[in-house]
């Protein structure tokens, strides 16, 4: 936090319930909150927001883009520290695309029209999007 005045970077932590999925420095983070997509740049105002099943984009300082699929959870931003908390989170290269597609098929076929089914569909879609974006 020493260099927060100029040339600031974001310290990003993507945390799942049972492990730290990714941590590092980034120039931009994009996540999907309940209100819509937000982009976080360095020196963003402190923010605490709920996120929904979706894709998180992280642009690292090296210019790479990491893509991760997350479940519903939280995004907290303060002092150029971004924490993304989600019960489950996967980096794009960890996702098995075939399996995600099958999950989506199954979730859609179950045809149940409740929150849980919608959640399952959204989760599967997020994982597929994340995996496709990365490849």
């Amino acid at each position, binding site marked *: 936090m020493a260099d927060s005045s100029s040339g600031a970077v974001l310290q990003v932590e993507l945390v799942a319930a*049972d492990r730290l999925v990714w941590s590092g420095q980034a120039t931009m983070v994009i996540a999907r909150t309940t*209100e819509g997509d937000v982009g976080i740049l360095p020196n963003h105002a*402190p923010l605490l*927001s709920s996120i929904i099943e979706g894709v998180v984009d992280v642009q690292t300082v090296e210019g790479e883009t990491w893509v991760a699929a997350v479940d519903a959870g939280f995004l*907290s931003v*303060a002092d150029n520290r971004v*924490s993304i908390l989600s019960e*489950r989170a996967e980096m794009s290269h960890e996702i098995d695309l075939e399996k995600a597609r099958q999950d989506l098929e199954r979730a859609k076929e179950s045809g149940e029209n409740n929150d849980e089914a919608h959640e399952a569909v959204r989760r599967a879609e997020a994982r597929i999007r994340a995996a496709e974006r990365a490849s």
Partner: protein
Amino acid sequence: MALSVREYRARIKSTESMKKITRAMELIAASRIIKAQQRAQAAAPYARELTRAVSAVATFSNVDHALTVEPEDPKKAAILVVTSDRGLAGAYSSSVIKEAERLVEKLKGEGKEVDLYCSGRKGEAYFKFRQRPVVQSWTGFSDQPTYDVAAEIGATLIATFLDEEGVDEVHVVYTRFRSMLSQEPTAVRLLPLEVVEGTEPPEQGDLLPLYEFEPSPSEVLDSLLPRYVQSRIFFALLQAAASELAARQKAMKSATDNADELIKKYKRIANQARQAGITQEISEIVGGVNALADAQAGSE
């Protein structure tokens, strides 16, 4: 010296094979405990960030939430007892159960009804044997709990807490992992939440910033608190798993040591018996020879 040498040999053999089993269990527990500790460490960042977020919301908004409100006249309490699925872990399960019983007595003394929830087969069996109703139990994961299980337990407990007919407070009894040598049964109250208690108070100078909440503080709290509860349960399960393995390792180590001692003792007795046999044989032969010599001397 009632038994023959052969019988002692058989005992030595069976003790030796038992020793092999306890030794193997000791080694398995020792290797698993490292994994369990790693899992507990891996789960720490999530719990830490969640605690930070919860205390941030609690500090900057005075939103009351159903999960934090103290009921005026608590009449019913739920206790989640975290035990192991298998035995052979020394006093691990029984000391958790003892702690739970103490809590039950205390709550009953305060005039509350107690509902029991169980995690782990040992606790379930204990209450079943005494014909005490267990509302719900979860089994089959005690040495490597997953977050999904914790989420399920959390959802059940929250649901019964929020239900008008349900309980007014929720306690968890689990074993805290202090070190490889010491594990301590602990009872904590989970609900209603005391957010302020903050297991890890923010470091000095680490003032919480003025957050903006999206969509709104109460909605953020709404989704934050159940997760906080689940993460606390997950923490308890992970601690219990590490404690169980440590207790099992210790129990199996002393079982192996005891087997060693027993084998040594049996070997000594067996050798004594063997020598006694030989001595007896010699004295029989000598006695026989003497008798023969006497008989010959008499006939001459």
